[in-house]
């Protein structure tokens, strides 16, 4: 387990923008072959309800740019010295989207900019990179996280698609008075359980990659994300509670001293299981993000702050635990002490801006 501690760093702002199209499970049930009884069961068990996705060819960077511009209405962008973009849905296979965003956002050419390819654990790893850069001497880092998962989940994949929402967040991290403790893990032996198999160098894109194929758990193409739900659920049950214990111990902070547990919003069912193990209720461990917005991958922690804790994070200094877990397999958690931050409610993407 990698363990890291930081002092004199604050999160100053968190803004999340979601796709402009809201779809309900009822509206798209026919794509998945779900009847009314099944819809009822999925709502009750998994928390399915609605999700916000992009329309047309909107990219993650478009959502993140809108989020960042909202931050720059309040904060001086000339202070930003690094821009990190954590996503699995870059604008291009190359170059790094972060570099293109430096120009779009009008940031200085002295800015460090690079992409990090991570999903569910991306917020934690991104935050760690930002804290590390501040710790090394930078004044201000803009972290952008998110995915347009609707663009890599096939519309007939009943296993994955009804879970996924699109979101792009911007987080401003600066020198300050707060602290952060991080624990992180990776286990590549499980890489096949969540994967977009085609389009990289291992399985180059081909005509075959575009052919929808029927599997027991849904229809998808080689260029779409595949998820083995059982393996991922099992992985989560095994690693997440242990990771919390590691963080409580490393940060010497008992569970009861932590105000909020903001977790990757995989689905309501997983979060209910974790909450039960930790003996926490929904007011301290929000779990409805996926039900309303969909699973926003690396943006889901920020999305939960903006979606459900906007008032709390805007008005008080807070001790918050963030945790991400999934694709990789990769998992990590951090405990941050932060002063009140700029955390407006969720923004809906405005096309053409």
């Amino acid at each position, binding site marked *: 387990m990698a363990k890291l501690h930081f002092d004199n760093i604050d999160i100053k702002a968190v803004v999340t923008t979601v796709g402009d199209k809201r779809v309900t499970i009822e509206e798209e049930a026919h794509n998945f072959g779900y009847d009314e009884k099944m819809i009822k*069961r*999925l709502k*009750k*068990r*998994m928390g399915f309800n609605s999700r916000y996705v992009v329309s047309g060819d909107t990219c993650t960077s478009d959502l993140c740019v809108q989020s960042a511009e909202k931050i720059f209405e309040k904060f001086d962008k000339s202070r930003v010295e690094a821009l990190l973009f954590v996503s699995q849905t870059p604008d291009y296979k190359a170059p790094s989207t972060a570099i293109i965003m430096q120009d779009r956002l009008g940031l200085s050419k002295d800015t460090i900019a690079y992409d990090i390819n991570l999903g569910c654990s991306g917020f934690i790893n991104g935050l760690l990179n930002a804290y590390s850069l501040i710790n090394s001497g930078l004044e201000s880092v803009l972290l952008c996280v998110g995915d347009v998962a609707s663009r890599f989940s096939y519309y007939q994949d009943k*296993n994955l698609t009804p879970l996924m929402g699109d979101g792009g967040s911007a987080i401003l991290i600066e020198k300050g008075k707060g602290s952060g403790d991080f624990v992180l893990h990776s286990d590549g032996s499980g890489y096949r359980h969540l994967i977009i198999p085609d389009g990289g160098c291992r399985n180059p894109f081909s005509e075959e990659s575009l052919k929808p194929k029927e599997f027991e*758990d849904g229809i998808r193409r080689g260029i779409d994300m595949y998820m*083995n*739900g*059982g*393996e991922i*659920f*099992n992985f989560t*049950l095994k690693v997440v509670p242990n990771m919390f214990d590691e963080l409580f111990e490393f940060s010497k902070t008992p569970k009861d001293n932590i105000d909020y547990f903001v977790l990757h919003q995989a689905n309501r*069912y997983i979060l209910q*299981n974790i909450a*039960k193990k930790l003996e926490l209720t929904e007011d301290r461990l929000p779990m409805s993000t996926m039900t309303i917005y969909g699973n926003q991958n690396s943006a889901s922690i920020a999305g939960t702050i903006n979606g459900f804790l906007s008032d709390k994070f805007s008005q008080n200094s807070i001790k918050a635990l963030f945790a991400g877990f999934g694709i990789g397999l990769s998992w990590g958690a951090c405990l941050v002490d932060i002063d009140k931050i700029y955390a407006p409610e969720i923004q809906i993407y405005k096309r053409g801006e």
Partner: protein
Amino acid sequence: MTKDNFLELLAETIDTEMELEETTLLDEIDEYDSIAVLSLMSLYDELNVKVSPRDFENLKVVADLIELAGEKIE
């Protein structure tokens, strides 16, 4: 937990209204699908029984689910 209690818990977990017996074929339970398996993994986890998704692959009857719970069932 007694076997009868566990059978009730299984039906509730799988979301079925069927009266489950040890000999009930899993294939005959409409609701026994991937969602049911997730719910069952969570149930076993609560009982502190270590299972993996592969443990569910070759099960035939409800008695196999009881056996998976091992000594937790009287």
